[in-house]
């Protein structure tokens, strides 16, 4: 810790000091992962914040120049690799936009600074951020990030498809409530899409279109059958064999019913988005943010006439209707000097103001991070965001555990083997148990 430097910086920022500081220049680098063209405000807001900070400094009679260098990755694997390796080599960025689930691994390896040491969470605009989002970015009692967006993951239903199998408008409108109460289950959904295929409303194999690649979405199905990802008390991961097997069986049944093909996984995303927009699928699930992609990039205009949306239904009486939220956060890295870290933290705080965050939320289809943001006109006028916000009370985030990523990879590998028919659900669960024991050792409770 170079406290002298820190003090110098603190002294400069001190209000009312008569010391005229020398012109200061900083270069702050920002990297964002999993960022599509609609999500440019993750980076641009930091740029806007830099402008604000420069103006504030000018008003206080100081000369401050902040250059922002930004880079984004559309995928996660590339981004996480680059962050990890650059962090090890000591030439990474100052600010990261990443999933909250990266916090455990990166904080343990010393890649991050706890941002809680650089900000007051009880001053505006951070004070209006929802408390449960602060919980998501807290690990080991320290705050490691500032929530950047929120989301829900949604089950989407084709309204023309449902009408083709005889559903009335009232029944369709009633579906979200029925799903939420657990009355309408995943297996009811399978029956419905099978019927759609039989009626010819959708092509064979297009009835059900799950996420085509590995992702946090699949935890939802584990939860639908009563699975729990981690143990509240000890923080260990939980493998609920019955729930896992029921979840695997559900997808095996979906393949058997012919509503999704056995080689569906690995479908290119652009094909998937294209099919959604063309109305080819009966039921599909994705993120609330996909709405922005469909309407902004693919020019889908009649979303609300064509699509009904609900929580992910319960699978059986053990589980519940649920949704996973995967908030991203601004993280402060261990790179650079303390002064730079302080400036970076200031930028993050400014970028989290309701107005700036609303740019991101509305353009990319993400949900508000704070209570004031809901009142920003741009946000308040967006029908989709207010509809999707209704899912948040039933949404949970994956727990912050170092091994949760490995668990997810192994779980997905097991799902793949069941899906492609190379293993029965029972075998896959036993394989998963063996693999998890090997991979995470005693950080696991098997039920």
């Amino acid at each position, binding site marked *: 810790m170079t406290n002298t430097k820190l003090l110098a910086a603190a002294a400069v920022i001190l209000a009312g000091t008569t010391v005229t500081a020398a012109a200061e220049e900083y270069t702050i680098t920002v990297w964002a992962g999993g960022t*599509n063209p609609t999500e440019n405000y993750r980076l641009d807001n930091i740029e806007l914040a830099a402008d604000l900070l420069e103006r504030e400094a000018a008003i206080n009679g100081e000369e401050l120049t902040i250059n922002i260098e930004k880079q984004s990755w559309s995928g996660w694997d590339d981004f996480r690799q680059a962050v990890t*390796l*650059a962090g090890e*080599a000591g*030439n990474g960025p100052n600010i990261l936009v990443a999933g909250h689930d990266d916090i455990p691994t990166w904080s343990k390896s010393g890649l991050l600074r706890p941002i809680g040491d650089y900000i007051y969470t009880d001053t505006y605009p951070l004070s209006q951020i929802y408390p449960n989002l602060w919980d998501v970015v807290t690990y080991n009692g320290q705050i490691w990030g500032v929530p950047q967006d929120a989301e829900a993951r949604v089950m989407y239903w084709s309204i023309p498809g449902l009408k083709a199998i005889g559903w009335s408008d009232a029944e369709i409108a009633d579906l979200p409530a029925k799903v939420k109460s657990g009355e309408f289950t995943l297996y009811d959904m399978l029956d419905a899409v099978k019927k759609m295929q039989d009626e010819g409303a959708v092509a064979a194999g297009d009835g059900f279109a799950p996420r085509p690649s590995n992702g946090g979405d699949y935890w939802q199905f584990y939860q639908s059958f009563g699975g729990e990802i981690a143990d509240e008390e000890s923080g260990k991961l939980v493998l609920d064999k019955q729930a896992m097997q029921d979840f695997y069986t559900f997808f095996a049944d979906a393949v058997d019913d012919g509503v999704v093909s056995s080689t569906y996984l690995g479908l290119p995303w652009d094909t998937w988005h294209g099919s959604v927009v063309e109305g080819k699928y009966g039921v599909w699930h994705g993120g609330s943010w996909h709405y922005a992609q469909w309407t902004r*990039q693919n020019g889908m205009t009649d979303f609300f006439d064509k699509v009904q949306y609900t929580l992910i239904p319960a699978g059986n009486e053990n589980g519940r209707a649920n949704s996973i939220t995967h908030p991203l956060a601004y993280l402060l890295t261990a790179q650079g000097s303390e002064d730079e870290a302080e400036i970076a933290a200031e930028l993050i705080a400014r970028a989290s103001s309701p107005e700036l965050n609303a740019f991101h939320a509305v353009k990319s289809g993400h949900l508000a991070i704070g209570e004031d943001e809901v009142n920003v006109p741009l946000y308040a006028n967006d029908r989709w965001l207010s509809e999707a916000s209704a899912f948040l009370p039933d949404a949970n985030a994956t727990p912050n555990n170092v091994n949760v990523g490995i668990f997810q990879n192994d779980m997905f590998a097991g799902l793949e083997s069941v899906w492609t028919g190379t293993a029965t659900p029972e075998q896959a669960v036993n394989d998963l148990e063996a693999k998890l024991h090997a991979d995470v050792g005693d950080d696991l409770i098997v039920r």
Partner: protein
Amino acid sequence: MTKNFAMFPIIVLLTLLTAPIIIMYVYLVLDTFSNTPPGALFPTSFTLEHWRFLIDPSIAGNVWIPTLNSLIFASCCTVIVLTISSTGGYALSRLNMPFRSFFLGGLMVLHAFPAVTLLIGIFLILNFSGLYNTLTGIVLVKAALTLPLGVWIMKGFYDAVPWEIEMAGVQDGASRFTVWRRLVLPQIRPGFVALGAFAFLEGWGEYLLPRVLAPSADFRVLSVFLATLSAPDTANYDFSLFQAVGLFYTLPVLLLFLIFQNRLMNIFNGGTKG
């Protein structure tokens, strides 16, 4: 060859075997100048719009910066490989020294050795030396990985130089070093040209090393630039644009290949012909 064989069936058979390659490359060129409606096999209209990226950076970003980076990367690799191979190859071919056969054997092992498996270890070296995420770092790595083949090829060319040249030089009282510089080097110019072209092609096409070991945007090479253009998780990527950039990227390779075709043939044999 002999006349009592009909050539026509052979040509037909070869054309059939080669069909996938011919189709892929013909369409690569064709698609960049035309539009094909979805579901159709043949293009219907001629257009130059896919080539606009050359002058309009709003389409795919500035393509000239990655081009320059690729040029720098491939040229540096070429220079390093040529310089080091020319001395190393001579030492192994002509100079008496201890462990010579051991060195040669080791070189052969490395030449056959799957270097990509070492990526993690290589990252560590770059990390310790502060060369991770620098152009210098990936140039050195790429050069080192091309080197076993380079040395082996140069050794082959030196082997073919008649001993009498050196004998004459040494008898005139010149040192071995002078003999090498003045008399031997001019003899192996064809080797230089072939290996130079080869090393350049290798550097120009390299993708994995820059992507993993130098991921920052400051010196994105063309291969990585091209790969980001085709990111499949964006909802609407333009395939014809991708092909146009791809063709632009491949043109230098094709030109080099056409110019040095015969010389390169030897090298693509894996340098086993010495």
